[in-house]
């Protein structure tokens, strides 16, 4: 049944967006970003990675964008929108490209995603603040992004192996 399939797809999509929202919310509860502005684990990337490997690039992109929009309406403002959109977009773009090369597994793609998530955010922050001083935070952001990428990649690989949509 075509309609059954479509509504199942929509339900699955809504479920993943909801999951991404919960992860974003959890992340805002636990400020890991003590001394470095804007360092977030990017926990929601777990959902984007999962979607990328199980549903394809287009679904992953839509889920990522919808999550950014919903998080902005719920917790954010225009500035945090630019900030999280840049992180999400750069991360997604690099993950897509890296996955296409076929030279990396999910783990490597996740690491690149985590790192680019932080780079995208700091670039927007530099543009908004009109200063390059923030470059000082880049080393910490690179390390944080790598650690987050490894954790999320490991979890994502586990889930992808066990959960069949």
């Amino acid at each position, binding site marked *: 049944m075509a309609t059954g399939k479509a509504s199942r797809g929509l339900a699955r999509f809504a479920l993943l967006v909801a999951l991404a929202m919960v992860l974003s919310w959890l992340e805002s509860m636990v*400020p890991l*970003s*003590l*001394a*470095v*502005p*804007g360092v977030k684990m990017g926990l929601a990337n777990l959902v984007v990675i999962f979607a990328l490997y199980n549903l394809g690039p287009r679904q992953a992109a839509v889920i990522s964008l919808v999550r950014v929009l919903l998080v902005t309406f719920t917790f954010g403002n225009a*500035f945090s929108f630019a*900030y999280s959109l840049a992180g999400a977009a750069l991360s997604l773009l690099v993950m897509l490209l890296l996955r296409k090369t*076929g*030279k*990396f*597994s*999910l*783990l*490597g793609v996740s*690491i*690149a995603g985590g*790192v680019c998530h932080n780079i995208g955010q700091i670039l927007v*922050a530099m543009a*908004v*603040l*009109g*200063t390059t*001083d*923030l*470059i*000082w*935070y*880049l*080393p*910490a952001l*690179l*390390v944080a*992004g*790598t650690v987050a*990428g*490894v954790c999320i*990649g490991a979890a994502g*690989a586990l889930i992808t192996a066990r959960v069949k949509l």
Partner: protein
Amino acid sequence: MKGHRNDWLLAVGVLVLAAALWFLLRPGGEGGWVVVTVDGTEVGRYALEEERTVTIGEEDYNVLEITGGRAAVTEANCGDHTCVHTGWISREGETIVCLPHRLVVRIEGASGGLDAVAR
């Protein structure tokens, strides 16, 4: 899982880059001046030796405290309080950032301020 080796090479590559950048960008020598910018415009420049407490902004405020040759944002009404958590800075190049208020507090070297005055 295929491609595992490349994954770890990527991780190590990023960490090496981080270490190199940290080495290049690490804070320099003695600081002399505390420079405050909001939206990229300088709004204040204070000597690091002089004790003082300034409140920057009104509705969106950050309290900057300079004492004992160090500076910190000790109070703010921004959402995340990253600026307050950053703590004390004193070395040239160190910064405190408050993203919600677009505020940057940066330490400049002792000579930078004098040059600025001379010009």
